[in-house]
C-alpha cells in the first residue's frame, strides 16, 4: 500500500520520496506489464517509461491513487507501441494489421486457456507445452517429439490456430 503522504512528498519534489515510491511500487507494475506483453525486454521498457511519465505528472495528479495511475499510463503506453508498429508494418493501406479490439485483451481468462488446451489433440497440446510453456527451441522440441523441425513448425501453427478457434 502506497502512503498518500509519500506521493505528496514526491509531488513536491522530494528526491528521497521519489526513490522510495519507485522501490515500493515497481515490482507490481512490472508484473502487470509483463502479463500484457509477455516478454522481459518490453516489460522493462514500458515500466521505465511509465515512471518517467507518471513522475512528471505527479504535481498535478498526485491525488489520484498511485497504482491506478501507473497502470493506466502503462496501458496507454502499450497501446501506443502497438499502434506505432501497426503503422510501420501495414502491408497495404487496406490491410488492417490489428483488429479494432484492444490489443491488450489477449490476457484471456487463464481458466479458459487451460481448459482450451485440454481440448486439443495430444500432439498439438504437446507441441504447445514444449514450445510455449516450457520454452524449448524448435530443434529440441523436434528431437523430443521425434519429428523434423519443419514438421514441428507446421504442427505448432495448426495447434495455435486450433486454440484460437476454441478460445474465440
Amino acid at each position, binding site marked *: 500500500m502506497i502512503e498518500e503522504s509519500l506521493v505528496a512528498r514526491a509531488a513536491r519534489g522530494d528526491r528521497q520520496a521519489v526513490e522510495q515510491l519507485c522501490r515500493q511500487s515497481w515490482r507490481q507494475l512490472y508484473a502487470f506489464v509483463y502479463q500484457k506483453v509477455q*516478454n522481459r525486454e518490453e516489460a522493462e521498457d514500458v515500466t521505465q517509461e511509465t515512471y518517467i511519465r507518471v513522475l512528471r505528472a505527479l504535481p498535478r495528479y498526485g491525488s489520484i491513487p498511485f497504482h491506478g495511475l501507473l497502470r493506466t499510463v502503462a496501458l496507454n503506453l502499450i497501446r501506443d507501441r502497438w499502434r506505432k508498429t501497426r503503422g510501420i508494418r501495414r502491408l497495404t493501406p487496406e490491410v488492417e*494489421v490489428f483488429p479494432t479490439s484492444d490489443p491488450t485483451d489477449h490476457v484471456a481468462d487463464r481458466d479458459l486457456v487451460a481448459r482450451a488446451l485440454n481440448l486439443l489433440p495430444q500432439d498439438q497440446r504437446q507441441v504447445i507445452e514444449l514450445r510455449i510453456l516450457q520454452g524449448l527451441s524448435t530443434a529440441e522440441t523436434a528431437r523430443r517429439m521425434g519429428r523434423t523441425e519443419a514438421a514441428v513448425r507446421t504442427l505448432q501453427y495448426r495447434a495455435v490456430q486450433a486454440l484460437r478457434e476454441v478460445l474465440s
Partner: protein
Amino acid sequence: MTERQSPELELDRFIDDLNREEQPEPPSSPEMAGLFRTVRAVRSLRTQAEPSSGFEERLLHRAGRKWLLRWGALLEAGLVAALVVVMALLLPRAARRDEAAAMAQAAARATRYHAQYLVSIMRDGTAADAYEEEILHVWVDGNRYAYEKERAYRTVYTGELKWQLRIGERLVVPLPAVRDRLPLALNLREEAEKAVRHPHRLIGHERVWGREAAVIEVTPPGEEAYRIWMDQESRLPIKLALPKRDGVQITYTFMKLEPDAAIDPALFTYRPEGYREASHDLGQVVFTEAEAEAVAGFAPRVAGHLPRNMIARPGQVHMVYGDAIVTQALATSPFAPAQQNVVGTAAGGPVEQVGYRLRWRQGNLEMAVEGIGGGRLVGLARRLAPDLTMTPEAEAFFQRPEVTVPVSPDDELGRLQAQVDQGHETWRLDPVLTAMEFLSSRPDLRPPSGVQVTRAAESTEHLAVVSLDRGPVQRVYLRRLLRQNPTGIWTIVGYDRR
C-alpha cells in the same frame, strides 16, 4: 521492405522471441496478429520472467534523472489523454456504483436456481497439476440446497438436517447440520452485498462462458482486492476470483446458471427409496482387545502395543497408531487384488498397495494399514505380518518423512476446521496451499520464488504428498485428520529436506 516468410516460420520466430524474453517483431497480417495474441494468452499460464539484473537501479536512475530534468515541464498530449482515462476509470460515478447495487438487487431476488459450478485452481508454472478443477451441480431453494459431485456424492442441507447420499453405495450418511461454504454457489446475495458494502469499482468487461459480464474489483478494508463478474443480462454474479496467493489463483464460476429453475422436491428427501442409513454403523470406542472382540466378534491382532484409539463394530476393528490406521475385518469374500497393485507377499498371500495403503489377507481377516508414507507404516504392517516382503520400489515409496511435524491437538484442529467451515482460511482445504503456507512461515524452509509445486500422484483423499522442484524442502506430507472428504482441512505431518 520486409522479407516475406511463411506463416509457420513467422509464428515460430515470434515464439522464439518471447522465449528469449525479447520484444518480438510485429505481425504481418490480421490473421497472424490473432495467433500472436493466442500465444501470449498461453504464455500467461507461465511464471513471469524476473527483470534483468540491476533493473531497479536503472529504473531509479532513469526515472529520477528525467523527473528532475523535466520538472515543471508541460504535460505531453499523450499523457493528458492517459489521465483523462484515469479520471474516467478511477473517479467515483453514480453509474458505476449502480453496477454493484444492481447486482445485489438481482441476487436478492434469485432465491431458487440450478447451476453448474466450477472451482478452478491455477498454479504458476507448468507442472502437471498446474491446473485443477472440480465441477458441481447445485440446486438452491431458499435456505435449503443440494450439490452433487460426479454423480457419486450428493450433499443435502435443509436448514435443520444435513446428509450425504453416496449414490453408488445407496447409502445415507448423516452430517452435522452446518452450512457449507462454497463461495458464490449457495448464496448469491451474500457475495453481491459484500461487493456493495466495500469499496469497489468497475474495471472492464469480459465474456464468461459465453456471457457478457462486467468485472468489478472489490477491496475490503485491510484485505487484498478480489474480483467479481456480473452477468450483463441477468445482473447476477457469475464468477468470483480470490486474490492470488503464493502463485495460486482460485476461481469460482457458474458455467451455467438457471434462476427460477424448477427444483424437484425429491432432492430433499432424507432417505430416498432403496437407500439405507449409515447412522448406526459408525462403531464404538473400545479400550481393550477383549472389548473389541466382544463387539467385533473376533480377536483383533495388536501390533506390539495397544493403539491410541480403537473403534469396533460387528466384523470390523479400527486401530489408530499415531500417523497410521490399522483396519481388520472378517473376510466375507475372496481376496483378489488387481495384479498391477501387488507389491509383495504376507501371510502366504499377495500384498496390495494403493497409495499409502497396504492390504492383505491373514487367516480369516482382511488387514489394511493406511498412513503417511514412512517406516512406521511398514513397521506396523510387519508387526502384524512378520513375514511381509515388498519389492524394493515399494519399500522406497514408504520411506518415512525425514522430519515429523507435531500435529496440533484435536481441539485446535477442530477450531481451524470450524473457521474453514465458516469461510475463513479456505486455503486449508488445498494441500498445496497448506504446504506453501507452512513453508512460507518458516524462514529456514521457505521455498524460492518461482518454485514449482506438484501434488504427487500417489496422494489420496486422506493423504497428500506435495513435491517442490527446488528449495530446502523436497516433499511435504499432509493428512486430513478430522474429515476425510473434500470439506476436511489438511494438516502438515512431515517433510523431507532436499
